[in-house]
């Protein structure tokens, strides 16, 4: 296994990225589930929704672990790209055994019809940037942003710092390696030239 410190550094920066950033928000109690539908690839206006799923949805899921967030990806690039938010009607109690598909990469998890006492809000995501989708999502869902704690801020800074140091180190090591490689190539050339001189004599 990789050493403890190295693993810890990677893990910490990854986890603070899940806790802090765009999408770190707590949904109101009446949001029951979220459904997204888009295509596998980016052509046909599916880049925004894909980015939203990759970058934003993990943070939403972290802060709202109990809310089912189902992603239905299909191979149909011409197909729709939309998000459906399900809300509980005020005062209504929902059945717990309502059919709930799980995410699918083959387009099998179509958005379920709202159950009794549920209403839906749809967001069209086609041809839109993930930031724009997030903005509309925030206003339509009424989610409350999570303020990062002092510790999170410190960890974020530490992660950034580590990344910068890593970049500088990579540049330095590349220079060293390149110099060594150049010298080696020169020696090889000298050897071959000497051999050629000897052969011609």
């Amino acid at each position, binding site marked *: 296994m990789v050493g403890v410190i190295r693993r810890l550094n990677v893990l910490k920066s990854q986890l603070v990225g899940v806790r802090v950033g765009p999408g770190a928000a707590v949904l109101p109690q009446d949001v029951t589930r979220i459904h997204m539908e888009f295509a596998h690839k980016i052509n046909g206006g599916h880049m925004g929704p894909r980015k939203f799923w990759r970058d934003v949805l993990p943070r939403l899921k972290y802060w709202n672990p109990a809310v*089912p967030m189902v992603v239905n990806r299909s191979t149909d690039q011409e197909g729709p790209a939309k998000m459906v938010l399900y809300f509980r009607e005020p005062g209504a109690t929902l059945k717990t055994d309502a059919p709930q598909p799980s*995410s699918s990469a083959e387009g099998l998890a179509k958005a379920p019809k709202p159950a009794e006492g549920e209403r839906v809000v749809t967001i069209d995501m086609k041809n839109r940037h993930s930031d724009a989708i997030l903005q509309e999502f925030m206003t339509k869902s009424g989610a409350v942003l999570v303020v990062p704690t002092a510790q999170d801020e410190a960890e974020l800074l530490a992660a950034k710092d580590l990344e910068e140091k890593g970049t500088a180190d990579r540049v330095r090591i590349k220079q060293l390696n390149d110099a060594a490689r150049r010298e080696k190539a020169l020696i090889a050339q000298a050897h071959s030239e000497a*051999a050629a001189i000897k052969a011609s004599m």
Partner: protein
Amino acid sequence: MASLNQCLASLARLNMSAPARPAISSSTIPKFLLPSAAPLARYASGGGGMRKRPAKKKKVYKTFRSYDMAPMEQFSLCDAMRYIRAVEVGQPPASVKYEVAIKIRTHKSGPVIRNRIRLPFPVKTDTRIGVICPEDSPLMVEAQHLGAVAVGQESLFESIRQGNIPFNKLICHVDSQDALKKANLGKILGPKGLMPSAKTKTLTTDIKATVQELIGADEYRERDGVVRMAVGQLGFTPKMLSDNVKTMMNLLKQDVNNAEETHPKTIDEVVLSSTHGPGFSLDGTFDPRDGKIKAEDLQSAM
């Protein structure tokens, strides 16, 4: 090589004997082409220049490297699951697996841990078993009860000949052994690795025991001092995953305790990860540390 040295040496001598010594611009000519450009003083005369030191002997470690675990941040099972479920959001839950990697402090040589385990909640659910047994016998009913997808003798052979193979494991009862031999299915089943034989323990007198052994039994083994195994699907609840991990750890502890005295083993660390997720060192506790989150929150549909 020798010729080059001679050549360079003569070059160097030429250089030295030149009356008006031109200043060598060492910046343009690499040093190794002109040894004379280097300081000429030789202190160890007669030694033939640079003598090669014997290569430093590399220290050979008998055990795999183990680390000080003090700086490692450890997580409860639910906390790790919360992060993993966040990272894996939107992935098909049946294809994403939870995995554990258990680091063991052990010698590099010597026997390794190797065992079979039946988890309370099997990870692989695509085991479809076909059973060859005499038609209309109580065995056939028993096999169907055990969840076999295809049962029978001549009818099964006929469907196999037609290319209809709905199973990925095939077992044969001893009573049907002769019929199987006569059926000449080796050409079809052999390449698929489905041909029942005593060697693979798929030729049996006890269908129940064999079927149960085939369904949901997993093998694990120690490689480079680490035991790795899939212990759950993304859709599992915290309770299910906890049961699986506990079962796994109990069996592994037995294996570790039963290790030979000459090659003692101890468990160093248990790391939970997932197909796309990071690895979390587990501290053996279950409940989430954040008071706002409950274990029940982590069992919604993925």
